[in-house]
């Protein structure tokens, strides 16, 4: 069988998705046997001009990680879309915005001010901030323009498949590779390498019955029993509103789910669904008592929608 051409690119990302691909361990040799890697900045020395020189549709599959945060990310999203037969939004950032998407609760100016003026380790008496173009003695230097709002990949270009997770688990990555190699690709727009159902559906922690909580606890001040459902113990867990498929890695490591796999099938807004689920288990009827309990959640939006603000019904803080 002819080898298929594979590319992997990071936009606004941390590189964890690339490392997750390497975490398939010795199976990486099978990937190398089945695929010609034509672009992969973390591992191989290809330049942007090499991609630009490819004919359209040259790459069979591009795994695109990272959110679209600046003009370079956007350019590469368009470029790789044109050069790829299948474009995969790989990992939470490309899928739903991910952790970089939390920047949508602030403006570019607020971020610049904090980063380039206010942080204790910053010495910047001339208040220099990044400019898309700077003229120096030798010529012009350019860097990409940072956008005010973080976008998911499918808000910028047409996306064929989604692989959720921050990062996707190596097991799921291997499943995805096998789907690609088999050539039996699912319908366009499918979420692959994950379940249709929720985390709770596959979570193995002990559930005692009906959940009723009268106080929210925090891991900073209370110790959860790692064998019992976090919600039953009063710790905020995003399991009920998060797509399954990761083998509940966090819950089995003693910390509640934070929702990186995004909303389950059929849900428009992960944060809204999460708060709806949590509301159902609060054991109070009086308005004042309910208020007292919900006020114990210190950081509502970032708790209920840690990874998916750019993909939500309201994609950023109101300007």
């Amino acid at each position, binding site marked *: 069988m002819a080898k298929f051409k594979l590319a992997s690119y990071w936009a606004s990302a*941390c590189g964890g998705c690339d490392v997750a691909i390497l975490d398939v361990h010795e199976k990486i040799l099978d990937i190398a046997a089945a695929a010609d890697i034509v672009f992969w900045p973390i591992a191989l020395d290809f330049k942007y001009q090499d991609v630009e020189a490819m004919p359209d549709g040259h790459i069979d599959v591009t795994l695109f990680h990272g959110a679209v945060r600046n003009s370079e990310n956007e350019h590469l999203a368009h470029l790789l879309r044109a050069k790829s037969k299948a474009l995969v939004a790989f990992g939470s950032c490309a899928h739903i915005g991910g952790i970089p998407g939390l920047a949508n609760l602030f403006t570019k100016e*607020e971020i610049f001010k904090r980063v380039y003026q206010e942080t204790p380790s910053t010495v910047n008496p001339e208040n220099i901030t990044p400019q898309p173009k700077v003229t120096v003695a030798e010529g012009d230097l350019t860097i990409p323009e940072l956008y005010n709002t973080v976008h998911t990949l499918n808000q910028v270009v047409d996306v064929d498949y989604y692989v959720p997770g921050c990062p996707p688990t190596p097991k799921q990555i291997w499943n995805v590779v096998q789907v690609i190699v088999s050539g039996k690709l699912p319908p366009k727009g499918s979420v692959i390498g994950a379940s249709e159902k929720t985390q709770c559906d596959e979570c193995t922690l002990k559930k005692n019955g009906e959940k009723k909580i009268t106080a929210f606890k925090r891991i900073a001040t209370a110790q959860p029993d790692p064998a019992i459902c976090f919600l039953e113990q009063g710790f905020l867990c995003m399991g009920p509103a998060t797509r399954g498929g990761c083998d509940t890695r966090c819950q089995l490591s003693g910390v509640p789910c934070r929702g990186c796999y995004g909303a389950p099938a059929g849900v428009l807004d992960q944060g809204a669904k999460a708060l709806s689920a949590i509301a159902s288990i609060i054991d109070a009827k009086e308005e004042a008592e309910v208020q007292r309990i919900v006020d114990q959640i210190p*950081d509502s939006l970032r708790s209920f929608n840690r990874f998916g603000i750019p993909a939500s019904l309201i994609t950023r803080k109101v300007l």
Partner: protein
Amino acid sequence: MKRISIDPITRLEGHGKIDIFLADDGSVANCYFQVPELRGFEKFIEGMPIEEVPRVVSRICGV
């Protein structure tokens, strides 16, 4: 003045770009290293519960 652009710098974590300017005799006249990426962790973790911060800042670099 001749310019050599290395874009992107590969085989490391993150985004980097180098512009090298060569003098007429071929020697390096000047060289600029640029980091074209910013996500803003310094700002967007403000006000977050302290126990949540490790799980967010671990996404600064996944390598």
